[in-house]
């Protein structure tokens, strides 16, 4: 039966990465290399105020003192930071055409990705900020949101329009001194989304950002900042894809979230960067720092991620539970196939009283991939009555892959209740046999079992995203069972 399975999946395994096309857009790319002049140039191109340039330079100088971290369970080939171009602008206008129209080629690209930038075509209830390479192409439904007082725009725009807000919050959760990639990002970040939900406002639609790397030899360094003021609510989605290329591309982003009193933020990601081919060539290096600060009492932050892409993933969306009664949640499905490597998980830092956190992580490894969960639960001395529940399950498909679990529990309080459990298993012959008996084909059965396994997490995603994620999951695993 094994052999038969192999054949079934071999066929579909060769199916190409769906979003691997390249768009021929007129792009302004600066020369590769990184030095203070490059940072000045980026800042200049964006017409940034002096304080922003200072912020960048400070981060760059600090970055120079750092070494690439090596603690993750990843084999990262040396990265030549001088060989990357740090700014690529696909919206460059030709000299004789200075109107605000977006290049039709760009519009087509996003349409092809299923992200229509025309508001009338868009699915109702989702506002999109589309970011290609280093620049935000368009943000939809801005006006409607503005009526409610919600700010949803690109980061560059926010620096100009709302400097006070940006100054107040930027870097307040992820300091440029946080880690190697945070310092790099703080120095060269180009665009991203800025969201501000004012007091007492419930955001009427899902906000989403779509990231696309298009140009070759560039890195994407976006920065997202979400501020949910008292008693507000927002659900934010993030999606990403990149063309298929033989060389690796670097993506080092920072997401900062500030959750004030009684506010709630839901952040969902479907990460589908190009994972490289079956031989492990090419693919995106996804080194991301994501962190939310639950500053207010009774605040809540929920991370949901479906990680299917990227050659290497290094990502730990975290919650700082500072306010009393604040809650953090982390739901993750990470799928690795072929030669992909993922070291992902979360950090739950309990500082306030009566804080609660939940971690559900499902790893699925196939092919020759390595999939690790790494998570920290820290309960500080004053975090009375902290409660944490962590569950990390791994599913192994094939005998060449690896599944690893590295949880850390640092407990400094006597009345914390912390539970962690992890299991590792594979799809058993019995399960498949049972499905076959009921007339379900092997291929379908595997999809069924994997989706059932990941259901706990997929259920947390907004509807449209959940459907996409479910499809992605089966595509990512095709050809992996045998």
């Amino acid at each position, binding site marked *: 039966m094994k052999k038969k399975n192999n054949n079934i999946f071999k066929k579909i395994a060769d199916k190409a990465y769906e979003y691997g096309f390249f768009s021929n857009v007129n792009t302004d790319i600066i020369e590769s290399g990184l030095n203070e002049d490059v940072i000045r140039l980026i800042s200049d191109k964006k017409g940034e105020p002096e304080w922003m340039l200072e912020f960048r330079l400070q981060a760059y100088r600090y970055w120079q003192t750092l070494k690439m971290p090596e603690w993750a369970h990843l084999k990262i080939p040396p990265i030549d930071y001088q060989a990357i171009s740090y700014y690529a602008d696909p919206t460059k206008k030709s000299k004789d055409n200075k109107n605000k129209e977006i290049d039709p080629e760009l519009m087509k690209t996003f349409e092809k990705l299923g992200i229509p930038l025309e508001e009338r075509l868009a699915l109702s209830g989702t506002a999109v900020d589309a970011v290609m390479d280093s620049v935000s192409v368009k943000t939809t439904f801005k006006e409607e949101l503005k009526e409610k007082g919600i700010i949803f725009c690109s980061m560059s725009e926010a620096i100009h329009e709302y400097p006070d807000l940006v100054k107040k919050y930027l870097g307040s959760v992820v300091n440029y001194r946080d880690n190697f990639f945070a310092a790099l990002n703080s120095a060269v970040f180009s665009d991203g989304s800025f969201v501000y939900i004012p007091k007492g406002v419930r955001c009427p639609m899902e906000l989403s950002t779509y990231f696309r790397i298009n140009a070759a030899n560039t890195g994407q360094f976006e920065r997202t900042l979400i501020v949910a003021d008292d008693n507000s609510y927002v659900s934010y989605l993030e999606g990403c894809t990149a063309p298929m290329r033989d060389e690796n591309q670097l993506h080092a982003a920072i997401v900062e979230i500030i959750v004030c009193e009684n506010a709630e933020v839901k952040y969902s990601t479907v990460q589908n960067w190009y994972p490289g081919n079956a031989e492990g060539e090419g693919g995106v290096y996804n080194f991301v720092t994501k962190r939310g600060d639950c500053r207010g009492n009774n605040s809540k932050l929920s991370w949901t991620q479906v990680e299917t892409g990227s050659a290497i993933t290094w990502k730990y969306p975290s919650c700082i539970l500072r306010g009393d009664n604040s809650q953090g949640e982390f739901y993750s499905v990470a799928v690795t196939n072929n030669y992909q490597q993922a070291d992902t998980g979360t950090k739950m830092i309990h500082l306030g009283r009566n804080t609660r956190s939940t971690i559900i992580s499902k790893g699925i490894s196939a092919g020759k991939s390595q999939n690790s969960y790494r998570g920290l639960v820290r309960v500080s001395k004053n975090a009375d009555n902290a409660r944490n529940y962590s569950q990390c399950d791994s599913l*192994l498909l094939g*005998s060449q892959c690896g599944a690893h679990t590295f949880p850390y529990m640092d407990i400094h309080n*006597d009345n914390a209740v912390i539970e*962690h459990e992890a299991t590792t298993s594979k799809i058993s012959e019995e399960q498949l046999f049972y499905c076959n008996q009921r007339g379900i084909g092997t291929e379908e059965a595997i999809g069924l079992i994997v989706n059932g396994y990941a259901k706990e997490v997929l259920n947390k995603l907004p509807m449209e995203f959940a459907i996409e994620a479910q499809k992605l999951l089966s595509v990512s695993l095709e050809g992996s069972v045998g």
Partner: protein
Amino acid sequence: MYNEKEYIGIFEQHRKLIDEPCAPLLNDKRDNAIRLFAEKGFPRTSDESYRHSAVAKLFATDYGLNIGRIENSINPHELFTCDVPNLHTRQEYIINDCYYRNTKNSTILPKGVLIGSLNDYAKSHAYMLSSYYNSLAKEGDSLAQLNTAFVQDGLLVYIPQNTEIEETIQLVMLLRSNIEIMSNRRILIILEEGAKANMLICDHAANNKQSLSTQVLEVFLKDGASLNLFELEETGAENNRISHLYVRQEKSSNFNHCNITLTNGFTRNNTHVMLSGEGAETNLTGLAICDKQQHTDNNTLVEHITAHCTSNELYKYILDEESTGVFTGKMYIHHNAQQTNSQQTNRNLCLTKCAHMYAQPQLEIYADDVKCSHGSTVGQLDENALFYMQQRGIPVDEARHLLMFAFAGEVIDNITIDALRDRLHILIEKRFRGELNRCKGCSLCK
């Protein structure tokens, strides 16, 4: 900042003196060991596996080293009386790091069994031991290397094929010195095919001077061999210990290990089990009861190298006052280790706000047909159970003790020597009541 150089200096300066009383087998390994130690230095807290255990500072004290092998005039038979009733053991002593030769053991050992000074046997049975000594520890971290460089004696236990020693071998390690002392001990245990043994190692300290013990145990279990190894640490707040236990298990061998830390200063136990023969089974259990500023760190690595092996781990900590507990348990399942069954459990009770627990249960799995799980919890005593007992007229303090006792019982019950288990139950009860702060066994403390 740290004084690696001082230790290397002492080593180089006194090399002749270190080598003189020792067997060539021990001396041959020193050069490589000190080189590796010099390369790596003391582990820092920036090293992942020593994140919460700052061992380097322990080496800052100016310890005395008994390199000249000055005979200790202590008679352990007078100093130490084992207070476990009905525990009939064959007692061996290591005082500081010297093997005590005048042990009064009446029973005659079966033919071929060797129990005694490691240094003596390394001279007389050099060829036989050469393939064992330091073969596992040479891969160890810098502290294991430091031990190899300085070690001069220890204990050898060799049990030939199909031989069973019914009497438990008890190794008593006594610390007694008028100055701050560092002792480096080495224990080599070899069980040939089908051999069986029980062993108890207890750590005692007979005075309040600061001490640092490094010990390396290498255990080899051949096909079908079975060893129960119990370690009991009952020293004082001034006594620090860094222990490395390496175990290599062949086909269908069985290893049960129970490590109990009752009183200590700073303890770091490294346990590395290699399951390299099919059907091998290992059970690791540990219990630490800490208060004041005790620090207990158990670091285990179980490597499943071949298929069809089983491993179970159960570690429990009860942390009171300002004590710190660290548990790192890694299960590493190699690519070929299909049909592995591996379980790890770590449960911890924090009794005060100042007690710290760091737990890192880890899985590294490279084979797909395995059953692996780990679980870890940190919490308090069950309020409902406490309430229930109070309802039944049991005072709250008593109820607490009963629950903690039950919590610890799960580990103690794995001890197969009845007399020792019963004694431990009493010891632990005393420990909870704060009545046990010195080793009851030694006459000096009474």
